[in-house]
């Protein structure tokens, strides 16, 4: 699903965010990307979404060479991805259902199709009963569940979550991780960046650790920190 071949990303400021990263994530995998702030986790996700281009190497996503993709084709790549953000990024003046529907409407989906799929996505995240509420009326965990519903409503083959539990209490963080695991069980590839050792250590999924822009560890049923 994702293949990085010798990927480097150097910003004009001179910062080397990623250096010679080679990694393969298969379809249907659940991967934690861990590492300290500035280790290159966010840059990794930006390269997958083509928010940034690699300065060296090749990034393949779902069979597409993302770095070489013409700008006009980028939206069609992004329609195959779902993204969950640490800060939720919900539109505060729209209802829960409208926030989820937003991802469908702006990609030109037939309006007839929107309502049933939004209902399905909200059922998956357990918020079908809160469809008409505004985000301000929801807890942090609930807001992030709306973010997850918005990310899955277009049925992505790949779900990227950038610190999805960073702003949540432990209980809400668990709910989000269970949700992402359940989505992964249906075959969606899930890549999660996190600073939360507890979640990583309990779930025991593949862990890719980055430091200074390089992969320092890649374990299939890994822990947050390297085993001593």
């Amino acid at each position, binding site marked *: 699903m994702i293949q990085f071949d010798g990927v480097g990303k150097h910003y004009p400021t001179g910062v080397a965010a990623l250096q010679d990263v080679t990694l393969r994530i298969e379809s249907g995998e659940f991967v934690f990307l861990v590492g300290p702030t500035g280790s290159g986790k966010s840059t990794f996700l930006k390269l997958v*979404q*083509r*928010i940034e281009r690699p300065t060296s190497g090749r990034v393949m996503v779902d069979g597409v060479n993302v770095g070489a993709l*013409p*700008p*006009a*084709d*980028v*939206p*069609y*790549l*992004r*329609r*195959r*991805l779902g*993204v969950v953000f640490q800060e939720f*990024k919900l*539109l505060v*003046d*729209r209802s829960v259902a409208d926030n989820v529907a*937003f*991802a469908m*409407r*702006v*990609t*030109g*989906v*037939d*309006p007839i*199709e929107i309502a*049933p*799929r939004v209902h*399905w*996505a909200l*059922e*998956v995240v*357990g918020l079908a009963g809160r469809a008409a509420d505004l985000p301000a009326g929801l807890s942090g965990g609930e807001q992030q569940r709306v973010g997850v519903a*918005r990310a899955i409503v*277009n*049925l992505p083959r790949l779900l990227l979550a950038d610190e999805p539990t960073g702003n949540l209490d432990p209980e809400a963080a*668990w*709910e989000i991780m*269970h*949700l992402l*695991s*359940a*989505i992964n*069980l*249906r075959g969606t590839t899930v890549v999660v960046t996190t600073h939360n050792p507890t979640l990583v250590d309990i779930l025991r999924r593949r862990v890719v650790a980055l430091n200074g822009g390089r992969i320092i560890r890649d374990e299939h049923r890994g822990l947050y920190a390297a085993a001593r």
Partner: protein
Amino acid sequence: MSIEVSTPPRVEADLSRSRAEAPPRWARERVARAILHDALDGLRRNGLMAAAAISTIVVALAVAGGGILASANLMHLASILEGQVEIVAFLRDGLSPADHERVLAAVRALSSVRSATVVNKTAALRRLQRSFGTPSSMSDLLPSNPLPDSIEVRVVDARQVRAVAGMVGRISGVEEVVFGTPVVDRLVALTRAVRAGGTALAALLAAASLLIIVNTIRMTVAARRQEIEIMSLVGATPGFIRGPFMLEGALQGAAAAALTTVLLVAGYASLAARVSTSLPFLPLLAPAAVLPAAVAIVWILATAVGIGGSMIGLRRYLRA
């Protein structure tokens, strides 16, 4: 905690479609409808921001429109002043009426001449009597009419008065040509300054309005950057993102232009009416003569800059 992800409802849209495949007509119509819907929805949701933007644009447009009206009137004033410039060609004594006609035809044949009329000595004396306020007594005091026959010439462009006077002076039958040399020179300098000042005023106010409008629209776009960012990240095409914002910019511009039209028309009509009664010597252009052009410029400026401002505002958020 147990979470089960059910099978999603079947959806007809193919999300993996690539740009290379041209969208069918129904899809294009759907996008057009969505853009219109989103533009109206955007204005409704951001009503306060839109109202603030429209108010600011109205002020900017009213200033620009006022500048255009002031400029047009200054140009008009310059034309009127220049129209007063006159050359008087005194004719040799003893010419027959046929000679008068010949000289008149020769004067009128000059390309820079706007009008020329013969004033015979009797008419000249009557005019003199009127200007001194002495009815018929003056002719009684003089043994004969001392005034010569003349031709009064008006030129197309006051700057050409010297050249025209020279050409008229060379026509056979013309004794002497007079025009107020220093006055004409000063007048030409004055009208040139008035014209340049009027143009500069209109250009300056239009440019200032342009900047204000572009910045106002940019601010309305910036206030919604999260919405734009989400649209971009979930795979909305740049055209789909731009469409509603450009339409909103155009609608805001049009709404502001409509309000400005009301202000300009009512304001200028009222000013023209007051001036015509209180200051009748001030040659203000009639509303019908100047308002259509000023209003047209205001509409073009408002809608074009509304769209342009949206595009400029969006540019920084739509870099792929």
